[in-house]
């Protein structure tokens, strides 16, 4: 039986391998960009008989500063690439079993860039959808 806290932590560890990007397995009160935050969106139970498959659906919100918008957008461009040293997809999928904790995971999509407000501060952010089979 996979442990949800371990799943989140190991996803954050994978994400944290991107140089210059912080990662958080729990939602921080006061995030310091650039940071990727792992959030559990939903859990689908009983994918197989006897509890044989549980599907965890995560979002990963990558927040960057807004001080220099063009530079920040380029930073997000790199995070959204499917490959490359700054690729969020590549980093999270670098260990697809999370050291044996899950069967498989996949970063399915990035929903694009947008502006978000955190603690009355505006930031640029991109959200990624991750499906984990455990």
């Amino acid at each position, binding site marked *: 039986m996979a442990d949800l806290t371990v799943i989140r932590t190991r996803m954050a560890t994978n994400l944290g391998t991107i140089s210059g990007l912080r990662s958080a397995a729990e939602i921080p009160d006061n995030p310091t960009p650039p940071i990727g935050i792992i959030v559990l969106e939903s859990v689908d139970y009983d*994918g*197989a*008989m006897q*509890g*044989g498959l549980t599907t965890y659906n995560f979002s990963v919100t990558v927040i960057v500063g807004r001080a220099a918008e063009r530079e920040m957008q380029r930073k997000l461009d790199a995070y959204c690439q499917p490959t490359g040293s700054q690729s969020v997809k590549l980093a999270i999928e670098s260990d697809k079993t999370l050291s044996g904790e899950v069967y498989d995971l996949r970063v399915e999509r990035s929903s694009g860039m947008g502006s978000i407000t955190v603690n009355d501060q505006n930031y640029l952010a991109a959200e990624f959808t991750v499906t984990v089979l455990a």
Partner: protein
Amino acid sequence: MAKFVVTATNVTMGGEDISTACARAELVINAAEVETTDFGSGGFTEVIGGLKSGTLSLDFHQDFGVDAVSTLFLDTVGTVVVFTLVAGNGTAAGTDTPLYTVSCLITSFTPVSGAVGDLGTFSVSFPTTGAITYATS
């Protein structure tokens, strides 16, 4: 026994518990229709039950690990294998969780299937051979 949502049909194949790889299980028992219509049937057809047969259909999540479902099926194509199914989300035979035991001829297996982004799965459907037994204890 109350109505129930299927979450935990217990499935074994050749004694191996493969429940946690199985996403759907269906056992159908049929009887052939043998026609007995004659001039005394009053304009309607008449039939009686003939030989019985069965079909076992299962959907699986693919797993190529050692002793996982892929290996089990690959090694048994063309042979007869005993399957058991405990319905009603049970793990052992009971009045509310009947145990069905069937022998099936493994007629086909699809080891590679799926489109990009899909969960790896495969489905099988086998004819039964011999009697289908039913137990509640």
